[in-house]
């Protein structure tokens, strides 16, 4: 079972077992980096958050109590670090950040794949942070509803509401905008 395997790996990693440490990093760091990248829209900051997340994890290993799945806990730490950074950005640059990025797509013929990807990424980054988190966790990373709700520390109903609003916004910007042009 994944849960037992988690616990076993964590115990060994806490004792300094290099293989267990590497296994944990290989298994979870891509997801953490992906979440941070989608949330922050900035690769360098996302890497900082990923590193900070694991540094906190290493500190917590010795006293780890499996109240939640390790991956859930890890993603929650990462998400909170992202929220912190977004909050600081708002405080520092509140006058400079546009309310919403202009993500309306041009005519279909003019769009190549890279432009489309950029537009989708920009649209996700421009979402309110909790909607962006819900979309990333559920639609992009495939977390279960329960797990995503647990990571975000919200109810499943609240998660669904956030996700519905996120997808509605993206639909409006990426699909309706394109059809209208």
């Amino acid at each position: 079972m994944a849960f037992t395997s988690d616990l076993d790996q964590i115990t060994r990693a806490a004792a300094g077992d290099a293989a267990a440490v590497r296994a944990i990093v290989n298994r979870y760091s891509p997801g953490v980096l992906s979440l941070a990248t989608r949330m922050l829209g900035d690769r360098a900051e996302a890497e900082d958050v990923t590193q900070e997340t694991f540094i906190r994890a290493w500190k917590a290993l010795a006293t780890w109590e499996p109240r939640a799945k390790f991956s859930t806990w890890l993603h929650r730490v990462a998400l909170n670090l992202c929220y912190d950074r977004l909050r600081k950005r708002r405080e520092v640059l509140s006058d400079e950040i546009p309310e919403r990025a202009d993500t309306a797509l041009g005519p279909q013929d003019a769009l190549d794949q890279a432009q489309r990807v950029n537009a989708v990424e920009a649209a996700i980054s421009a979402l309110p942070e909790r909607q962006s988190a819900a979309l990333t966790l559920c639609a992009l990373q495939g977390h279960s509803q329960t797990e995503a709700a647990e990571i975000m520390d919200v109810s499943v109903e609240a998660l669904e509401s956030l996700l519905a609003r996120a997808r509605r916004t993206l639909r409006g910007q990426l699909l309706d905008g394109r059809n209208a042009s």
Partner: protein
Amino acid sequence: MTDDRLIELIETWGAEAACWPEAERDAGKALLRAHPERFAGALAQARELDLMLGALPEPEMPRALTEAIIAAAPRPKRAGSGLPGWFGLKTPWAPASGFAAAALGLFMGLTMAPVASAEDEMTAEVEELVVSALGFDTATYAVEELE
């Protein structure tokens, strides 16, 4: 399951029934099978958005970042050898040199210091204390000594 709820599920969780909440999945699928025409528009839009989201590349973990994270991980504990690693000290020779210095100091002290006699530097206060402890009348003793 109502039409409105199924449209909500499609718009929220996407076109794939596997992504819908488990508790409503079967009912949603049954309604969709029964009346596919009612949901075709919502499904097509949801599918298109799903494809756009699915096409996003996953960021690759840079090797340097992986190694930096691993380097910050807990270190293995040292195997014990009698006294467990000199109580966890990283430089076990440090207390050994301290013990050597103390032993040398003790040796020098014992061999080079002058031997003290009982009369050396006996102050009046100490003398009085000794006499009192032996039961003499210190005043008388002092007078006798003067004579």
